[in-house]
């Protein structure tokens, strides 16, 4: 149920973003890009929440065989992909890695959005308009 709403939200965000970047106004294109990048951010976070509270990087029997030196131990045959969890531990958190990823993505989109907003301001100064159809000086 939760997953359905999440997917729907992501889909609607992508739809709005795509609609906006196809507009003729520069500012709308920029807003569209912002919405698209946030749709991607929600998508990344949704990768971490998977089937209730389970961690997506664990599948199969959830258990890593604990060795003496290391808790990292892949076992592809049993479907254990990335067990940072020791054997028999009850898992009750979402994947922390996706949150680190999304934090990085947010910071990067902040930087690019800031740059493109300044660029839009300069374009408005140079051309006196924010209509994309007027931006044809490179076409000869």
């Amino acid at each position, binding site marked *: 149920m939760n997953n359905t709403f999440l997917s729907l939200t992501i889909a609607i965000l992508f739809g709005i973003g795509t609609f906006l*970047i196809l507009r003729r106004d*520069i500012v709308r*294109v920029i807003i569209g*890009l912002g919405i*698209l*990048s946030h749709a*991607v951010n929600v*998508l*990344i976070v949704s*990768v971490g929440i*998977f089937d209730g509270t389970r961690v*997506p*990087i*664990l*599948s199969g029997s959830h258990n890593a065989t604990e060795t003496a030196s*290391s808790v*990292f131990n892949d076992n*592809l045959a049993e479907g254990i*992909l*990335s067990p*940072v969890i020791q054997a028999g531990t009850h898992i009750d958190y979402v994947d922390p*890695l*996706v949150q680190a*990823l999304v934090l*990085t*993505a947010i910071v*990067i989109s902040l*930087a*690019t959005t800031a*740059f*493109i907003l300044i*660029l*839009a301001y*300069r*374009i408005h100064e*140079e*051309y006196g308009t924010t209509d994309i159809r007027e*931006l044809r*000086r*490179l076409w000869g």
Partner: protein
Amino acid sequence: MISLSDHLPILLIAIPILTSVIMVFLKGSPVLQKNLNVFIYLCLVIFSIMLLQKVWTGGIMVYEVGEWGKYGIILVADLLSSGMVLLTLIISFLSLIYSLDYIEKRSLNSTYHSLFNLLVAGLNGSFLTGDIFNLFVFFEVLLLSSCGLVVANERGGVTKSSDKMEATFKYLVLSMLGSIVMLIAVASLYATMGTLNMADIAVKVSAASAAGPLPWHIFAIALLFIVVFGNKAALFPFHYWLPDVHPTAPSPISAMLSGVLIKIGVYGMLRVFFLIFSVALPMFQPLIMFMALATIVIGAVSAVGQTDVKRMLAYSSVGQIGYVFLGIGMGSTLTIAASLVYLVNHAVAKSMLFLTSGGIIHHAGTRDMHRMGGMIKSAPLMASMFLVGAMSISGIPPMGGFIAKFVLFKAGIQDEFYLPVAIALLFAVFTLFYMMRAWMKMFWGTANEAENHGNAASHAPTLLMIIPIIVLAIIVIVLGLYAEPLLALAQATAEQIVNPQPYIDAVMTRNVR
């Protein structure tokens, strides 16, 4: 005992980032800033030679940032990445020297040095990283810094400010869309495979394909990656931003963009498709080959119709990158080696051509080829240098471009790709045509006595602008006359790409704590 050579991969990324910060603080003393930056680039070139030599003799080098093994960020230097780093640093060193006299003083002192360092850090980082999300981060670093560099002003003001704004806007919007697509692909890959380490993903994909048919979204992700890297490399349906951005950038930056930055797409394609999606590769090779051929045709045909010299060079870059992808699309060891040789030759020759065109347009005061003419008398050096570059790009024997084209077509014929090679050969003739036409238009014909053809102030190239061009010309000729070392290196690199098992072993069999 900390030995320098063990830390080369991180040094090649950390030093440019650190320098970029230092350059901001040295704004007040331009001479110190200039000299320090040149010195640091000299060091970086030496480091990258050391790295390549170490990888060549000692095998693939894995550097852990932190001690998390394959769960953290790792840097991997194999022959492909260290070779690309060396190429990047040679070209950026020469571009830096060139830009000291080419860029307007105020622009140079304030932001240029910092952004240039960040660009190189982004390039080195994306070549060296072994982590697919980190690849995205470095893509963004080099995207933003290159956008900042494209709007830098050159002396004389040949390119209008509004042109720069418009080109950068196109570039930024398309690149942001590309990064959004890349994030979707990375997130889906992570959701499917549960790891971000490229070697680890490769192991898991091959394990999954051994267990049964691959999940369908692996193929969708592979297609998304074609979009991402095609966008970076200006492959056919995604190439529309390039002919606007590369000409409007200042010439040393055009050299960096056309010489190295679009090669990031080639590198990513080689890395992601031959390492991660190697099981799905046979399905995508015809697609890559088709896109490459379309790129060759579009690039060559569009370049013929250009009057702006730098715009023609940019369209020629589009066409030439198609040849590189053609070798990747054929996909055997020989053709990949050939496309690597092509890549190096194109990088050197195209950087040289862009630097030369910077000298030419500063001499003529315009970028329009119709308004130039008879400049062989007033600018004989630029004329001969442009001829060297043009001959290399169009593949005339003593130059490196001939070896590259020859090796590529020979490898293609050996693998029985007759039709693609025939198309590529036909449009190679187009390359010869538009390059020679441009040369004749600019340097032959009636001399225009008043040298100042355009509105911009014209001036002769200084010594600092001439030296990098001559060095690159020497490299072009040496690559043509003595091609064996490059061919051997490309062959070894291609073997490493086609058989990624040593790479995977080097990354996976680390002692994790």
